[in-house]
């Protein structure tokens, strides 16, 4: 049983929004708490380089 999801449905979820800013804004407008991440592509937008850097760190 996925108890975390059961609990989530009974409570008032808090969100982290990574990407399209409007998704977070619509949740905020509906009264939900949202932390907006100002996301930019890591490693200048090269996913392979980003994965290599992540492994190194």
């Amino acid at each position: 049983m996925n108890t975390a999801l059961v609990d989530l449905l009974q409570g008032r979820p808090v969100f982290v929004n990574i990407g399209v800013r409007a998704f977070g804004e619509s949740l905020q407008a509906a009264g939900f708490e949202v932390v907006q991440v100002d996301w930019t592509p890591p490693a200048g937008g090269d996913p392979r380089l980003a994965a290599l850097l992540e492994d190194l760190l």
Partner: protein
Amino acid sequence: MIKKTATLRNRYLDSVFLMQVARRMAASPGIHDASALLGTDANKAVLAGMGYGALDVGPNDLVVALEGEPLAVEAVAADLEAWLAPGVPGAAPAPRTLEEALRSRAADIAVVSVPGAHAAREARAALAAGLHVFLFSSNVSLEDEVSLKLDARDRGLIVMGPDCGTAYLAGAGLGFTNAVRRGPIGLVGSTGTGMQEFACLVHRAGSGISHGIGTGGRDLCDAVAGASTLAGIDALEADPATQIIVVLSKPPGAAATAKLAERLQSCTKPVMQCLLGGKDTLDGAVARTLREVGVEVPTFLRPGVSPRVTGLRPEQRHVRGLFAGGTLCYQAQAIFGQAGLTVHSNAPLHGMPALEVPEQSVGHTFLDMGAESFVEGRPHPMIDGAQRRRRLERELGDPSVAVVLLDFILGTLSSADPVGEVLDILPKGLCVAASVCGTEGDAQGLERQVRALEGAGVRVFPTAAQAAYFCRDVALTLREGS
């Protein structure tokens, strides 16, 4: 009047935000037209078509293209950073990473909509931090999806997605959602617009949705084996507000079907399955569900006899469907398929021919305008109908077209006036059929949108399936007459 482009190298901003920026720019004095786009190949082609020439930019570069009075264009171009600054001026800078964000506030769910190539990394980091994930991003590999969902299951979490457009969780609408009341019906769905249409019809019938758990379109393929569907069913079974569970999906794989059947047998609550792609339709499933919870099925959910179309010229042979909602495109193909009609599509139902060149319609053609080839680096057609408008103009100029079928999706994040985006090009002489997915509570207003269409002579049907039935009947009549 001049045209000018300005480029910011290695600058990422999301396509929805860029569309909003472009609209603000276009509304400023002296600017006649403005675009703000990432330099993808598709966007470069759009800008070239608009007369901005061949641009030496890449997908990580941001291009602003301006047309207007020289002084106004130069002023905007000189002050791009101010135009592109997100958030409230003077506000504290937002965290740059998930880790930074979680230092300031504990959270439950990560909403991830970064470009597909980066999405799995962000989702993996969110799961590691103990968060459920709503993964809107598409272009995530099946291998990544499987590993993310296994990881989520081991941690007691759920990944809704990838390519998950809609969820309703504890009263919060994630992604594209409508203003629907809460009620006894719990949804688990691998189809975004399917969940929207279902929830809106339930609302318009007077009932409501407890929660809607999106799973992503591939969840019930055999490789993923319904990992998120099963987690969603578990949660809704334990949820005291849910009386009945509805599972909305395209036909599952064989192994996933067996797993799902086994789980449903042991479920302590009634479960309704709506398998699109065959005989099931969303409105039919809503009617069955309403009966289960003791709500009278309203008359608008009972399809009537299709009105006849008269006055077609002999060369008018084809139905062209331009869909913002992928599920509604799929459902319409199934309705045609059940009647033995062939439909070409860029997102073909099993057994239907794929459209070889998406830009060129053939016979009866149904286009999913939200498919990846149309939305790379650009907003979804539910947000910005510009691409669909251009395609509609072309279809309207094709003398072989007998009927055009359109869907309009209202709600959060959708265009402020989806009908208004095409209203001025709808011809009086051609038969246009449409459905509007939404409620009176949506900002666009269901009745307002329907009235605008009806005022333009469009035949508006209360459900997407009924609009497709009408077009099917026209197509059958055309076939008989040939």
